[in-house]
Every structure is written in structure tokens, then in C-alpha cells.
């Protein structure tokens, strides 16, 4: 089929020589131009990346970035009007909906790794998260070594608990590792002193601390169990023209310093709906990445 279409295109090109230069649109860009609409996939509770506010409207750090991409696409296609459709996705539906063309961009907190890149593409990284641990100030922990022989909790079925188990063996900590059902339960174990520390993605820890009864009692560690892993906005694989537009838009956003402004809005100020403040200043690694945007899935690329 594709072959025939190419032959047809070649014929058409020779017939209409005068139109040479007007580039043929393909893939997502063509689709957006034809329908006059772009569909963004959003998550309903990935605070502060992509979630519903009190008006049931999707907002967040990733949503702000996506709207900037939409502006760039509109400009690229020279459209007067571009309708933005919003479609909720979950971790289970984001791949099928991306593959079958329901959504064009997934604006959330999806980790960009090599294995996933076999299935989808990612634009420039918008966040970096590492496996760290939260503990009570009163417990006086200073480094991972201080966890020796203590009870440490992490959430079952995550890569974090895997990293913790490995570090426990590698560093000979002899810590007692207990798996918890979910993040809230794991945090509760630290709150009730059943465990001294909870190992998880640092940004998730920050939102748990911000939402706790006494945010001032907790500290998130400086040292980490893993290298920072990138979050990226997801798009369809093998769609180079669209990816080029999206990459250019995000690169321009990050290098201009506007990216950091949007970051501060969601991570350093109160965010709706409950007015939580995550108080997470931009990391040195992410600052470097914003200066030199990359879509690499390799944690080594973000030093």
C-alpha cells in the first residue's frame, strides 16, 4: 500500500511541478491540520504535574508545557484556530490511546526509559526524580549509612524497593525492609514511628510531606539510592516532523528561562486545590538540562 502511495505521490509531484516547495505534511501534523484539533492526554491525580483542580479542569506543570507546545504547533501549521481537546488517561490506558491516535501528547509524569522508547517517543525532559528517603527530623539521620539495622519501608511493586534491596546488600546495611501497600500507608509507617525512613521518588515524598499534619517534622534526604530519572511528555514513535516541532518548542521554552518560571509556579508556590506548597527548589541537574535540553532516557546524561 505504502509503495503505491509513494508512486502516486511521485506522479502527482511531476504533474504539479509548480507546487514544489510546499512540504507534504505527514503523521500527527497532517492529522492536526486536517481536523483543526489536537488532543492532550492528562492524568487526574499526578500532583503537581497533571491533575484536576476544584473545577475539574486539568492543570499542572506538564499541562502548562503542553499548552506552550500547542501554541508552537499552531504557529508551525499557520492555523488561525486550533481546538484543544482533553482526554483523561491512566497508567494503563496511555499506551493504547497513544498508539491508536486518540491522544497526540501525554502530559503527565511518565518516566522516560530505554525500554519504553521501543514503544513511544519522548520530548525533552521536564523533570528529574531520584529515589530518596524521608525521615523525621527527630531521628537524626545523616546519610544512607545511618539506616544500618533500622526498619525502612518502601512501596511494594516499585523499582524503588528494588533499589533499596540492592543497596542494602551492596552496602551491608542489614536494614529491615518492609513493603507497604501504597505510598500513603508507607508514609503512615514513618509518621507512627513503625519505620524510620520511607524510600520513594523524591517528588512523591515532597507531596506526601506537604500534605501531612506537620510538614515541618520531616526531612527528605540529600543522598539518593538512584541516579535522577527523567520524566518526559510522550508522543507517538516514528513521527519525526511532529517530534521536531515539539522538541523545538520545549527547547525554546526551557532555554529561555520561562521553563524555570513555570517550574517555580508549581513547585515553590501554593498549588490548587488545597493550597499545598511542595517547596522543592529546582535541582542542579534539571537546571543543567533546561540549559541544554535533551530527551535522553539515560540517567548518565543528566549529571
Amino acid at each position, binding site marked *: 500500500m505504502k509503495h503505491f502511495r509513494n508512486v502516486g505521490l511521485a506522479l502527482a509531484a511531476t504533474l504539479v511541478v509548480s507546487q514544489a516547495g510546499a512540504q507534504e505534511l505527514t503523521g500527527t501534523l497532517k492529522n492536526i491540520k486536517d481536523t483543526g484539533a489536537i488532543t492532550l492526554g492528562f492524568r487526574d491525580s499526578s500532583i503537581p504535574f497533571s491533575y484536576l483542580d476544584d473545577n475539574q479542569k486539568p492543570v499542572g506543570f506538564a499541562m502548562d508545557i503542553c499548552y506552550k507546545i500547542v501554541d508552537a504547533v499552531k504557529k508551525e501549521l499557520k492555523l488561525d484556530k486550533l481546538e484543544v481537546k482533553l482526554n483523561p488517561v491512566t*497508567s*494503563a490506558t496511555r*499506551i*493504547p490511546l*497513544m*498508539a*491508536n*491516535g486518540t491522544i497526540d501528547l501525554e502530559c503527565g509524569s511518565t518516566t522516560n526509559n530505554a*525500554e*519504553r522508547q*521501543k*514503544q*513511544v517517543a519522548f520530548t525533552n525532559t521536564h523533570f528529574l526524580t531520584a529515589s530518596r528517603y524521608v525521615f523525621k527530623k527527630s531521628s537524626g539521620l545523616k546519610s544512607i549509612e545511618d539506616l544500618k539495622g533500622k526498619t525502612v519501608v518502601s512501596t*511494594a*511493586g516499585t*523499582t524503588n524497593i*528494588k533499589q533499596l534491596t540492592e543497596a542494602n546488600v551492596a552496602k551491608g546495611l542489614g536494614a529491615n525492609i518492609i513493603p507497604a*501497600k*501504597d505510598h500513603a500507608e508507607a508514609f503512615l509507617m514513618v509518621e507512627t514511628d513503625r519505620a524510620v525512613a520511607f524510600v520513594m521518588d523524591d517528588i512523591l515524598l515532597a507531596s506526601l510531606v506537604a500534605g501531612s499534619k506537620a510538614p515541618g517534622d520531616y526531612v527528605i534526604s540529600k543522598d539518593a539510592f538512584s541516579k535522577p530519572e527523567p520524566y518526559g511528555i510522550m508522543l*507517538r*514513535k*516514528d*513521527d519525526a516532523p511532529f517530534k521536531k516541532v515539539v522538541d523545538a518548542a520545549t527547547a525554546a521554552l526551557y532555554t529561555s528561562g520561562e521553563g524555570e518560571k513555570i517550574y517555580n509556579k508549581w513547585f515553590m508556590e501554593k498549588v490548587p486545590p488545597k493550597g499545598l506548597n511542595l517547596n522543592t527548589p529546582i535541582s542542579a541537574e534539571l537546571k543543567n538540562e533546561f540549559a541544554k535540553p535533551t530527551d535522553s532516557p539515560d540517567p548518565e546524561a543528566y549529571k
Partner: protein
Amino acid sequence: MNYNWNWKIFFEPNPMGTGTYLDMLLSGLALTIKTALLAWVIALAVGSIVGVLRTLPSRGAYWFGFCWVEFFRNMPLLVQLFLWFFVLPEMLPRAAGLWLKQLPNAPFWTAAIGVGLFMSARVAVQLQAGIGSLPRGQRMAATALGLTTVQGYRYVLLPMAFRIILPPLTSEFLNTIKNTAVAITIGLIELTGQARSMQEFSFQVFEAFTAATILYLLTNAIVVTAMRFLERYVAIPGYITGK
């Protein structure tokens, strides 16, 4: 569809370090079968007792059976598991609640008991119908022979009733297996749960759920075949399910 099919994914190592992705799904299947078997034992035992209660001459027994069935069958299974798992420990005295929460394998036991009680209501209704379908003369004949109520049920009514309801019981057993999938919401990583975590790690969502579907189909096909043999073996000649 812009999708990168990769059926070889099952033989690639999973990131949890527990072998391949296939091993991950098979360990989920094992947990599904364990949960379903325990739930089915509970459903049969409790369902039989409640079903019999509903056919006894005693009004109190009838009402107890009636309340049991209506309580368990009129609430969605998902809500029931939530109640057992999250609400019950909070309503107990603090120490007992804490003990319950810290039990090892709490999701497994909660799922097996929760699904078992839910299915017991269905078994009870069917057993009641099975006993009800027997000619009235059978009960009377048992009494006339001088059998006590217990003996009447044990030697006359139940052996007949259970054989009559064996085909619908087969589908209830299949339902029990499928219903265990609801338990992912309380953190039981059974077959559906493993398929989910496989797609989370590898992004091969269609392969993961295709494999889970096939495993469910195979398991249920084995159960159906085994039950057919059992039905033929215990069939009463000349009766509905007989030849």
C-alpha cells in the same frame, strides 16, 4: 495503529529480578488459583450451611439465611473488599485492628475470605433452589422412615440437590476465579495485577493483557472439563442431569 508489537517480551528478564516477564505472569496465575481455591472452599462450605438454613422449617433459620444472602449479594464485590480491608480494622479495638493490619499476606486472606463470602450467597440460593426442586415426597419419606432432620438432609435431600445444581455450580466456580481479579484494588498482585505491572515496566500493554486473557481462558477450560467429568460421574440416571 502505531504500535510496536514484541511477542518476545515474555522471555526478556523483568526489572524486579525474578526471572522473565512470563515468570512474573505465571506467579500471578499461581496466586489467582490459590486465592480462587480458598475462596471456593469458603463459598461451598458457608453457602451450603446458609442454603440448608433457608429450607429448614424454623422461621429464625430462614430469616438468618435470608439476611445473609441479601447482605452479600446486594453489594458490589469491590465495595465489600474495601469494607473488609479498610473499614473493618478501624471499627475494631485499636490493638485488634493493628494486629489485623500487620498480618502478613493481609490482601490474600482478605481477598479469599471476601470473595468466598460473596460467592457463598450465590451458592446458598442455588442449593435452596436445588432442594426446592425435589419432590415434596422425598422429605416426607425420609421422615416416615424415622430419619431425623439432619439424617434426612445428609442421606436423602443433599445428595440429590447437589447433583442437580452441579452445572450452575460450575459457572459459580468460574465466576470465583474471575472475581479474584477485583482484589488488585486491595494490593493483591495476582494475574491481572502482574499483567498491569508488566505493562507498566515494558509498555507492551497488548501483549501483557493478551497473555493474561489466554491464561484465564486456559484455567477456566481446565475447570470446565474437570467439572464435566464430575457431572457425568455423579449423574443420576433418568434425572435432569442424567443420561
